[in-house]
């Protein structure tokens, strides 16, 4: 040990450090709590705005009136406004249904392929790519759906519907053909990379199918599928309809479901699947019998969150659904969702009036639904994580 020791620190500064620590902690606490409160206040505020509808004596409305099938709040003088919210609820659910119908198979299929068959390097590239897909603004998807896709599908209805058959058939065809390929070629076209090399194949099939479909339409439907549908089934075709909305909103919702489902599948301890395979099951069988059931809650919560997204999406429905307040089952007709209604009508509604408060009610319904669905999904996932940890520890 060498030189004499340096002097000690000074106590006066300690007081200011202490003060700064207390103040900063206070600031952080205040800010944190304030933010949390603000964020939670949304639901409270909505409820407060809606309450006078049913509680206050003046602008009160019976529940029965809301349950009617006619939504026409802004009317010409002399007519009574109709506040039936059923068409809006129906429209919201119909849009979400078709979106999920389209999105769930694709998202789950992608998650299965990604979790089980893809090499990790490719998977780590796929995830951010699909994240970017999720980042596509709804207004752009809605614009393409409403202004480009809808007219095109209307003109090429037969071809578009044919794709729904041709594409899956093409995937299976590719599978069959692959098993018959010589081993040299099979090593080049690895199944783990099938997600990529199927792309040109499917694009080719789609082009061929669209090219040939007028011929088939001529043979099967007397050259005009729409006319045939109208004559045979009485189905009217609206240019902007549930199919279009389903496609567009499904596109927007796929990445969300994919991410969570893939997390759920990769979270299943490998030992479970390997155990099944050791007993002779193929990878797919072990998936169906062992892995999927184990991951089922996670997959289910992924779907729930996707449903929440689909219910709340505004711009796509606004631009691609035609905004007609119909209540039909046909996928070829338009609809009107709650979110779109709010977006269009709220700026014009008189603050404090019945129309205004009803739109707030719609917002509250959306808020409650998505909040509940998300909370449920989160709880399910938390329980699943605990279960996995126990499984992992046991094996």
């Amino acid at each position, binding site marked *: *040990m060498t*030189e004499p*020791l*340096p002097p000690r*620190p*000074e106590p006066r500064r*300690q007081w200011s*450090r*202490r003060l700064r620590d207390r103040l900063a902690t206070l600031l952080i606490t205040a800010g944190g709590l304030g933010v949390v409160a603000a964020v939670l206040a949304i639901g409270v505020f909505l409820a407060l705005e809606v309450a006078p509808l049913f509680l206050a004596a003046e602008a009160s409305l019976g529940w029965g009136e809301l349950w009617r099938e006619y939504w026409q709040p802004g009317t010409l003088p002399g007519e009574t406004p109709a506040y039936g919210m059923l068409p809006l609820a129906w429209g919201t659910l119909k849009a979400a249904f078709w979106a999920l119908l389209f999105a769930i198979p694709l998202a789950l299929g992608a998650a299965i392929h990604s979790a089980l068959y893809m090499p990790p390097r490719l998977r780590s590239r796929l995830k951010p790519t699909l994240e970017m897909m999720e980042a596509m603004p709804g207004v752009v998807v809605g614009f393409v759906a409403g202004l480009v896709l809808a007219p095109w599908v209307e003109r090429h209805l037969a071809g578009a519907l044919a794709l729904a058959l041709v594409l899956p058939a093409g995937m299976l065809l590719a599978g069959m053909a692959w098993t018959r390929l010589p081993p040299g070629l099979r090593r080049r076209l690895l199944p783990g990379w099938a997600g990529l090399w199927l792309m040109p194949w499917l694009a080719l099939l789609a082009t061929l199918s669209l090219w040939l479909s007028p011929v088939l339409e001529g043979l099967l439907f007397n050259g005009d599928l729409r006319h045939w549908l109208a004559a045979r089934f009485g189905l009217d075709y609206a240019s902007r309809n549930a199919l279009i909305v389903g496609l567009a909103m499904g596109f927007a919702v796929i990445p969300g479901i994919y991410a969570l489902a893939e997390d759920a599948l990769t979270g299943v301890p490998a030992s479970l699947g390997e155990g099944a395979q050791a007993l002779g099951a193929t990878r797919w069988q072990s998936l169906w019998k062992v892995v999927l059931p184990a991951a089922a809650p996670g997959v289910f919560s992924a779907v729930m969150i996707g449903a929440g997204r689909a219910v709340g999406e505004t711009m796509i429905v606004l631009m691609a659904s035609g905004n007609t307040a119909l209540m039909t089952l046909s996928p070829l007709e338009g609809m009107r969702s709650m979110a779109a209604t709010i977006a269009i009508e709220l700026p014009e509604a008189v603050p404090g009036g019945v129309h205004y408060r009803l739109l707030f009610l719609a917002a509250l319904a959306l808020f409650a639904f998505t909040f509940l669905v998300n909370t449920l999904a989160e709880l399910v996932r938390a329980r699943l994580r605990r279960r996995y940890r126990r499984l992992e520890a046991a094996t």
Partner: protein
Amino acid sequence: MSVFPSPRPAAGGPIIDFDPAACCLEIEGLSLAYGETPALRDLSLRVPRHRVTAFIGPSGCGKSTLLRALNRLHDLNDEVRLAGSIRLEGQDIHAPEVEVAELRRRVGMVFQAPNPFPMSIYDNVAFGLRLQGGMRKRQMDDIVEWALQSAALWDEVKERLGSSAWTLSGGQQQRLVIARTLAVRPEVLLLDEPASALDPISTLKIEELIRNLKSQLTLVLVTHNMQQAARVSDYTAFLQEGELVEYGATDTLFTNPRLSRTENYITGRMA
């Protein structure tokens, strides 16, 4: 200046007692629990000034827990419940008027895995000094040099004080951590298995450092390596399941332990 402590066996028991005037830290009736799980049970011992005291025992016996109680690191954990008292130079460290930050300056700590900050070597050592504030650059430079010399690291890093601390080897990083702790002039230095993550050569360097630092500080060392405890410490406390089993001069404890429990532990490990 320090009185050579005269060990007085307490009523023939296995735990020696020191004259409080010669002691830096006094632990009395300390019990600690993580939630419902007890970790320390009614522990009492005194740590003599300017000596190296080692805590040994099987893993899970509470030696690290005891060490961390000495600089109130358990404050970070909401679930910890504490009873009993700990005194530093006669002052209760849990008294409400005690400023925890100042306590931790006086009772420094070196951790098992070296944890230098992602800053330059100089900034790591000067970290504590900057907290105290009001120091001119020349003064700070002197202290940094002194601290690095005390930690036997100066010669190796004097040319590259500005480079990142993470470029140093494990042994050097640990000495850097010791240097930055020394820079704030603590009275006690707690070392939690400081060499367990290091290679044998670095370990020996750290041990030599510990011996050299004795003259300025009180050192408390937790180790699972009994040869290390034997080499380096003056007094050793053997803990088991949260209790203090035996506490005595290192030579005596290792060559002639009073309790069979102690002997079993020591011989089991040394074999």
